[in-house]
């Protein structure tokens, strides 16, 4: 029984991170019908910024400020930095391609991704950085019930992801800005005719999506330690998968998709075999897509004339 609960927690932690990345993908897709393949690199930059803050504060062994403050600062810096990076990328690489066929910005995104990845490689080297979380927050801090161990860090990550998603949902559905984002996603021309500054809304969307990715980067660092220049590639792919499986364009769908993949990975590794984990997960996802062609929470695709 505890084994099951343990896997649920594992799945939740992993899924939360994937969900945050997926939300960024879905938001940008919703508004621009663009798959932002540079999103994974934004997440990677967020993780590095968090590491930078941690090192500037003295590293996990010799902190000059209290632990909770360091963590808050890491998140704040990473989220802000990633958000700004996302806005810059949009301005520089995607805006010129607004009228282009949908597939063109894909390659631009890939190019930006390559560039960011290798810039980080050149500036910071190939060494795998380590957040060394156990020295920051010990593993014994948390809930222990027999063989079941849930560390504080995991709880932090799950809760934070939930909070961020709730905040985002509130932003999108209740605020004026959110309504403007929805309107632009639905019909950019009509929105601009109604007086909405479409360019600004798009920039805000990118900002918010990238902020999520930055948070995800720090979370990954805290729970899973390793930070290196190539981490964005695989994570971006998983986030993209989660976004599509959940129904691309839908924020709750992205959350669900991320959690789904997180659970699928954890459960297949725990109950079957880690060797076949990827195969099983892909198989499950294929089945899901065949059974629900529009994704978990997506709306049935309308074939437009």
């Amino acid at each position: 029984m505890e084994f099951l609960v343990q896997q649920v927690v594992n799945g939740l932690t992993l899924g939360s991170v994937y969900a945050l990345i997926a939300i960024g993908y879905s938001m940008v897709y919703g508004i621009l019908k663009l798959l932002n393949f540079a999103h994974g690199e934004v997440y990677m930059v967020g993780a590095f910024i968090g590491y930078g803050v941690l090192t500037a504060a003295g590293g996990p062994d010799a902190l000059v400020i209290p632990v909770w403050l360091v963590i808050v600062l890491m998140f704040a810096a990473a989220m802000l930095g990633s958000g700004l990076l996302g806005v810059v990328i949009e301005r520089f690489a995607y805006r010129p391609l607004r009228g282009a066929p949908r597939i063109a910005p894909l390659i631009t995104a890939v190019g930006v991704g390559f560039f960011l990845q290798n810039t980080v490689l050149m500036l910071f080297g190939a060494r795998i950085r380590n957040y060394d979380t156990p020295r920051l927050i010990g593993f014994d801090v948390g809930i222990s019930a027999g063989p079941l161990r849930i560390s504080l860090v995991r709880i932090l990550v799950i809760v934070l992801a939930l909070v961020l998603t709730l905040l985002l949902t509130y932003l999108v559905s209740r605020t004026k800005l959110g309504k403007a984002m929805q309107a632009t996603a639905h019909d950019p021309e009509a929105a601009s005719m109604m007086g909405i500054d479409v360019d600004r809304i798009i920039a805000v969307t990118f900002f918010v999506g990238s902020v999520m990715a930055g948070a995800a980067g720090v979370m990954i660092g805290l729970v899973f330690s390793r930070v290196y220049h190539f981490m964005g590639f695989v994570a971006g792919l998983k986030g993209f998968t989660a976004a599509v499986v959940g129904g691309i364009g839908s924020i709750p769908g992205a959350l669900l998709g991320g959690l789904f993949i997180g659970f699928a990975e954890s459960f297949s590794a725990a109950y079957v075999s880690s060797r076949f984990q990827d195969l099983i997960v892909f198989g499950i996802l294929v089945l899901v897509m065949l059974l629900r062609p529009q994704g978990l929470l997506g709306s049935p695709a309308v074939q437009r004339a």
Partner: protein
Amino acid sequence: MRVKLFSVLLPLILVVGACNGDDGDDGDGVRDDDQAQACGESYAVGVSGPFTGDAASIGQEQLNFARLAVDDFNEENGTDFQVVEGDTQLDPAQASTVAQQFVSDDNILAVVGPAGSPEVEATGPIFEREDMAFIGMSATLPTLTDGTYPTFFRVVPHDDIQGPTDADFMVSEIGAEEVFIIDDQTSYSTGLADVAQGALEDQGVTVTRDSVSQDETDYSALVSRITDGTDVAFLPWQIAANGQLFAQQMEEQGKEAVIFGSDGLFAPQDFSAEGAYVSSFAPDITGVPEAQDVIDAYNETFEAPFETTFGPPTYVATQVALEAMNEACVAGDASRAAVLELVGGVTIEDSILGGPIGFDANGDVEGARFYIFQIVDGEYTLVQ
């Protein structure tokens, strides 16, 4: 219109750039040399490895050590050898292209690398055709030195030596009866895991075998499958940071099993799980006096303490290549065939790996043995 022009001229520039590289005369570039002590020409050694991409943490360190070795050698001997780098991203197709690049460059007389065993298999025939010696520093598949690739040498012992050593230690010193072996789906890892599994099972140990991808973010699910009866978790992995995470998650879940890592996990900066064992083909280089200068130089030049076990062998491999190149050049026959013949006979008395380096008839390093360390109080302590 301008852009169309640009898009037409860009390919033209590329073509011009590409054609500009041929140094002309083909053949093996025999040049005479009058200097008695040192080679006056600036030949080059090709270094092939994953310098970008997923495995860059390994490749960049290898490249840095190779450059350091060349600088040190040039300084000591008054030579002017160069390094030509070839990025393979651990992909055998790219390694094969890089091999062609090296082979077509008349200045390159020997090659260090490639890093992975599949890459060696893809490039072996190309180097063999041109009599080009290539010295591996991390390709440990045992069959590489069975004669299929006559121009291949390596400065590290292969899996058939490491596997049984680790297995015997687990049985005799740790007293393991149940071992959980997890490989990381690379050629290095599965080969080593297979050999170790065979050796363990021969001694009556129950072995559970699983594998995990190097890209895997979270090992928690896998860790939770380690039973309480498991004595040892054997991790023949390439990336020490992954091993560190695994160890942390084992501690998080309160697992008692002892971690035993292969030489891929030997990285004092990255892997420091208390009580874990690690095997290595060299006594800790930070303890070797000859190595101290090299380490200092590395730390100074590259601003980061070296991390993994893949670096120092590259230094040694480059040394071997340079020795052979220098000897051939001084003897007046700076050809690849001459260098190839000399490589087999190169001996380095006090290498930074803590012992002498010499090759046997197959191209394997002589006197290879593995040392076992245990991490005690955060320090790597030699136990065997």
